[in-house]
């Protein structure tokens, strides 16, 4: 993968919290409610044409982070720069042009496509809104995009419900590409698809990104899929990136105990693989009550006294490989 390292997207120290529902008595007394910390000081960069895999379990904040980047929600603090332009606090007008250059593909194409809109209209609409093409070019534009994603031109006259899940995801991709973006955020784009269809869509994304030189943040919980797709990986836990590095670094030489736990827990489709460690105990703590110090310590096999007091920063392990853990890498093997 040839990836130009000038960052197209620079996210620094983004934080996003949500108000939790509080009891009526507390609201009446004007007591401050609890806040759920969804994203807690995340920084990352993605280069032009680079593919960053964002991995984490439900509640780790990966979708909130993606939505903040697209400014579908406003982060509480931090900075998000897209080819140099600051998006946090930007006006609607400024966002309009950036939104064309950054597009999103969602998990469930059935709920992200309007059921009453024909496929052709759905694909042409964003291009017309953003004045990417003149109205009289719409038909050709749709035909080209359908061809690009491997659907017959006749699909333009069909409704989403007349298509299978895999075909609908192709339409969602065509719609995202309709405005000629430079960057895609794909949030679990194949999780709802069957294995036999998943491979078709992953190959399609791979081809398109390569051909169009697009960068991508690829969000998924399936480690094998991320390993296949991404150049670099960031592992999230409870609103933080706990480890990041090249795909090979993270998968072949994981440093954070959480990354190790995730890799050990992923079921391998090979019955001769013998499990070497027991299941990681416990559940992810509530984002309303993030543990003191290291947030993974409540489930960590290696936690020490210090982990309760000090919040570990992301430390460099080797060039480009970082992990947020107090216990030094070698100690993990004891």
């Amino acid at each position, binding site marked *: 993968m040839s990836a130009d390292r000038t960052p197209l997207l620079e996210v620094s120290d983004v934080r996003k919290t949500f108000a939790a529902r509080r009891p009526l008595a507390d609201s009446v007394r004007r007591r401050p409610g609890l806040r759920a910390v969804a994203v807690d000081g995340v920084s990352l960069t993605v280069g032009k044409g680079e593919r960053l895999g964002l991995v984490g*379990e*439900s509640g780790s904040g990966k979708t909130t982070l993606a939505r903040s980047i697209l400014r579908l929600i406003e982060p509480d603090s931090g900075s998000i720069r897209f080819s140099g332009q600051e998006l946090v606090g930007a006006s609607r007008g400024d966002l309009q042009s950036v939104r064309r250059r950054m597009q999103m593909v969602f998990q469930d194409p059935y709920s992200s496509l309007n059921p009453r809109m024909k496929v052709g209209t759905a694909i042409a609409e964003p291009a017309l809104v953003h004045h990417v093409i003149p109205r009289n070019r719409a038909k050709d534009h749709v035909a080209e995009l359908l061809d690009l994603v491997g659907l017959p031109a006749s699909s333009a006259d069909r409704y989403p419900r007349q298509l*299978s*899940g*895999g*075909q609908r995801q192709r339409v969602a991709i065509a719609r995202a590409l309709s405005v000629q973006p430079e960057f895609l955020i794909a949030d679990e784009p194949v999780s709802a698809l*069957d*294995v*036999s*269809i*998943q*491979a*078709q869509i*992953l*190959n399609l994304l*791979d081809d398109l990104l390569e051909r169009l030189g697009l960068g991508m943040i690829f969000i998924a*919980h*399936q*480690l*094998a*899929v991320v*390993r*296949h797709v991404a150049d670099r990986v960031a592992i999230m836990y409870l609103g933080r990136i706990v480890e990041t590095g090249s795909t090979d670094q993270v998968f072949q030489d994981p440093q954070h105990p959480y990354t190790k*736990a*995730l890799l*050990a*827990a*992923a*079921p*391998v*489709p*090979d*019955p*001769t*693989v013998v*499990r070497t460690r*027991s*299941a*990681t*105990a416990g*559940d*992810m703590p509530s984002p309303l009550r993030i543990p003191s110090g290291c947030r993974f310590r409540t*489930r960590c096999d290696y936690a020490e006294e210090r982990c309760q007091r000090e919040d570990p920063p992301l430390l460099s392990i080797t060039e480009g490989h970082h992990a947020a853990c107090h216990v030094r890498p070698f100690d993990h093997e004891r």
Partner: protein
Amino acid sequence: MVAAANGVSFDVYTGETLGLVGESGSGKSVTCRSILRLVPHPGEIIAGSVVFGGRDLLGLNGRELRRVRGSEISMIFQDPMSSLNPVYTVGDQIAEPLRIHRKLTRRQARMEAVSLLDRVGIPSAAERLEAYPHEFSGGMRQRVMIAIAISCKPKLLLADEPTTALDVTIQDQILTLLRELQGEEGMAIVLVSHDLGVIAQASSRVTVMYAGYVVEQAATPALFHRPQHPYTVALLNALPELAVQRGDRRLIPVKGQPPDLAALPPGCPFAPRCPYAREQCETEVSMALEDVGHGHVTACPFHAEVGL
């Protein structure tokens, strides 16, 4: 009329886990539910038999069937939130089968519920009895479901996608728990899953379904290493794990779209997507299972040509 499961046959033995794998619409859930005659309306079981310990469950009357359900055979589902009753406490729901099937008193049932919660790994079990399902996390709810399912020491546990809604570390916990319980109780498990990883790790034999038909069945190692049906081969080849192993950037997808059950071809339902298909596959293949040795059966008459 749509045939969701078509001439499906398999056996499950005491203490073993049979994996039932297939994609959406393959009929694995319908098959699993048919065992307890839980096929949702307007579905019907129109032919066949389900012999459990010598009795045909399809021939039982309502009363006899109720004695089997939740007692000798119990079931856990994908989404424990919708299979637990939100307005009863967890304790009440665990106690119910104990009082009905094992005729325990309220006190005894309560004590038994505590020990069951304890066994499925729920901390401070006695205090959690009064909790409602919404107060539990997804993984904890599935543990409660399992506690209910094993409460009457079933001989057979039907697990329909028991970990699909859970995160991978929690899935690992639940699969480990099922394995431990099976070791202690010797119960048989039918594990329905679309995830070949889960099937490889958790089952001793596997049945592969496609469009309502059993296409292949074998001991787990044989199925994963020497698959004898083109669909099984295609599924394994499409896995990103295996592409990583091959050192390949390209996945090998299964061509075409999933089958439309209302318009299946007269022959083999996989023929339109099969790289080995020949003309007669679309019209003449009967889907009868052929034994290729050691109980490894396949519905493909051309299995000799098929391989990874």
